[in-house]
């Protein structure tokens, strides 16, 4: 078993916005506002401790010093150091480079400790070429690529590695799925709220439930659920209408079922039997919606359930207003909705009137003939309390 570990010691301090020219004090304030203290080394250690029973069979590869080796040793491992640290403070470029080196060494799984920024770095470094899993570092996280808790990260990693090596597993079944990595929008941040856009995907291991739900019909696998959702959306596509598919794995499944490709992070436009335009910008989308009846299909992004964001995102306020609430289809698997823990889906279009249009309850398509009625809130309402503090 070959496990890689990389730690971003600045996770949290760097903030979800990134280090590009932001005022350190502002970042600190935002970090506090988002309610977190950076603790990535400690949390990484807790995750590793869960893996100690596998120590004998496991080779642990990690960058030297603060980016891995220190923590690994403290946790009781004898890691193989890979790569070298720069002189001076580490940057995103270093994280990316070291992750690439770990990938090149040849590992089964890469664990990383950090926040959304680190997740983006992993994305840049390895994409979906390697299973990756995030150990939450203590900041609020918007990407969907993290375990719920450091221990869980260790557990999932252990189960995944056990399964790979074929040793009789008494644990859960583990599967891999693509999960979203997001970027926070700078304009929202400046306005004091948060909204996200899709940055890319990572391939993460996750555990299906083992102890059976004795009283329910057998659930479909995640893949089958996505098929069901895609079928439901496609079946309702009237000929001639435009379908604007936002980014995400669920909308990807729709495009795939139609037989078309979809851009990784962009907004793409289709009709039932043709690709109309790929990776459109706001202006192009506005043009299209002026001329044709349109439905917008979006799925909650990341781990916090963002539906619409602001800034230069293509599906902007005026497009939403034109299309109308009744022509907005939200799609999601039940598991993803459930991971929101009852918290509402979030919108932040930048235009309060449009946000109001969307708020309340929206139906979310979760299967072939299944919908869940779910609450939607503008982020401004959510973060009001923070402003007041």
């Amino acid at each position, binding site marked *: 078993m070959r496990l890689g570990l990389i730690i971003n010691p600045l996770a949290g301090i760097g903030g979800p916005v990134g280090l590009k020219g932001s005022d350190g004090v502002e970042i600190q304030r935002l970090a506090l506002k988002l309610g977190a203290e950076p603790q990535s080394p400690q949390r990484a250690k807790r995750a590793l401790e869960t893996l100690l029973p596998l120590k004998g069979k496991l080779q642990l590869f990690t960058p030297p010093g603060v980016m891995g080796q220190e923590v690994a040793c403290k946790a009781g491992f004898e890691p193989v150091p890979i790569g070298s640290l720069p002189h001076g403070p580490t940057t995103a470029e270093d994280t990316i480079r070291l992750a690439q080196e770990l990938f090149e060494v040849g590992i089964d799984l890469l664990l990383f400790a950090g926040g959304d920024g680190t997740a983006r770095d992993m994305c840049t470094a390895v994409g979906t070429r390697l299973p990756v899993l995030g150990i939450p570092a203590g900041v609020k996280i918007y990407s969907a690529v993290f375990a719920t808790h450091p221990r869980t990260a260790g557990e999932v990693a252990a189960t995944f590695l056990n399964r790979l090596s074929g040793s009789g597993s008494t644990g859960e079944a583990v599967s891999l799925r693509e999960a979203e990595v997001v970027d926070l929008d700078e304009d929202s941040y400046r306005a004091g709220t948060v909204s996200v856009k899709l940055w890319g995907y990572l391939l993460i291991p996750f555990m299906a439930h083992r102890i*059976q739900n004795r009283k329910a019909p057998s659930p479909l696998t995640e893949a089958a659920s996505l098929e069901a959702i895609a079928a439901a959306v496609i079946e309702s596509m009237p000929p001639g209408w435009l379908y604007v598919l936002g980014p995400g794995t669920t909308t990807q499944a729709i495009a795939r079922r139609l037989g078309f490709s979809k851009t990784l992070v962009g907004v793409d436009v289709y009709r039932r039997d043709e690709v109309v335009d790929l990776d459109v910008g706001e202006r192009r989308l506005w043009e299209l919606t002026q001329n044709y009846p349109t439905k917008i299909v979006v799925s909650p992004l990341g781990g916090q359930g963002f539906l619409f964001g602001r800034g230069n995102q293509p599906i902007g306020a005026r497009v939403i207003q034109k299309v109308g609430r009744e022509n907005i289809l939200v799609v999601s698997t039940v598991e993803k909705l459930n991971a929101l823990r009852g918290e509402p889906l979030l919108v932040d279009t930048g235009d309060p009137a449009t946000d109001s249009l969307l708020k309340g309850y929206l139906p979310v398509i979760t299967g072939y003939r299944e919908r869940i009625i779910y609450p939607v809130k503008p982020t401004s309402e959510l973060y009001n309390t923070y402003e007041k503090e």
Partner: protein
Amino acid sequence: MPHRMKPVVYPYIPNSVPSVKEAMLKAVRVKSVDEFYADIPESIRFKGRLHLPEPLLSEADLVRHIEGLLAKNTGAREALSFLGAGCYQHHVPAVCDEINSRGEFLTAYAGDPYEDHGRFQALFEYQSMMGELLNMDVVNVPTYDGFQAAATALLMAQRITKRSEALLCGTIGKDKLSKIQGYVRPYLQLQLLGYSPVTGLMDLDELKQSISDQTAVVFFENPSYLGFLETRAAEIAQIAHENGALCVVSVDPISLGVISPPADYGGDIACGDIQPLGIHMEYGGGHGGFIATRDDPEFVMEFPSRLFGISPTIVEGEYGFGDVAYERTSFALREEGKEWVGTAAALWGITAGVYLALMGPQGMIDIGKGIMQRVEYAIRQLSKIPGVALRFEGIHFKEFVLDFNQTGQSVTAIHQRLLQKGIFGGVDLSAEFPELGQCALYTVTEIHNRADIDRLADSLQEVLL
């Protein structure tokens, strides 16, 4: 009715002892339980007392009351019964009753394969023994009954083939048909095929004409609801397969010691009811359904029922159990989910397993042979009675249709007179199959001996004079 003022301590409610109740109310810091109902609005609070009979608080009084009611029933073994039509009087071995009255099996429910290991093993063994009977590798934990098994088998075929039409044998019982019709309505269009008035067998010409590339499944029963064997079963299966349809056959499990299971003549899904296997008739409460297929993921994934599988544990030499294919991986348009799973008939599954283990291969052969011999004898004796004839030519298993049309009398009248002689005549088919006129379905099993059959023949002869 006087309202009981003195607090009763109920034997079934340990904490109804007043001092205990007091202590517990104190422990949860409320004056009365009513405080826990505070969320229930006044407008829907039931005021007063339910109008129910005064209770029989002593067990002796209860027994007396119930036995008084039961005394108004006549059990089939107190008479001489030839009733069948889906519910059967076979001998129920004492060991079957012993095992399904065991408190552990009777009162367990949905625990894990650790603390309920015995339950899992017993049901796995049931699945396995049925697998041997049916010559198939996959058998479900029992569903409600044979009607449900047939309906689900049809929908499984629909999901696998993704087609929308089903062809059914015309001799299917009307109750089973009613259940199927209701259940499959959103998914399958049903067509009943004609049958030969002479043999009862499925009209193969009509089958060939009716089958198309929209046919998901051809369904028939073997033996038929009307008792004869569908002897051209292999042909029917072949026609189905040639057209890309699946073949579903509903069978009587107690016949499978002498009659081949569907797997041996081209059946893709076998289904039926386990009531004949060591389960009392219970006025219709003793049913359990089985569905069996080959070990092909395409089929396995379509079962709504639980499928228990065997597996090692972390200790060498131990048998572990759990659910196979818990997550179903298939999805097909026009179908959503795999029906449902719920409390069904597990205890009967365990009972059927006990039965099959007691009987063993030779027992199943003996019982099948013996039943068919008795039926042949009965048919001969009864056909000798003037006006009475065997309706369908051909080979029967344990039931056969007697035609009374030539007697000029109704089955109702005939059977009323038999009843006065302490005989329950066969099931009246005149309403269910009007095309047959005054006919009745007679059932003979291993519990009937020669004297019984002779008595029936003599009595019929008398009442028909």
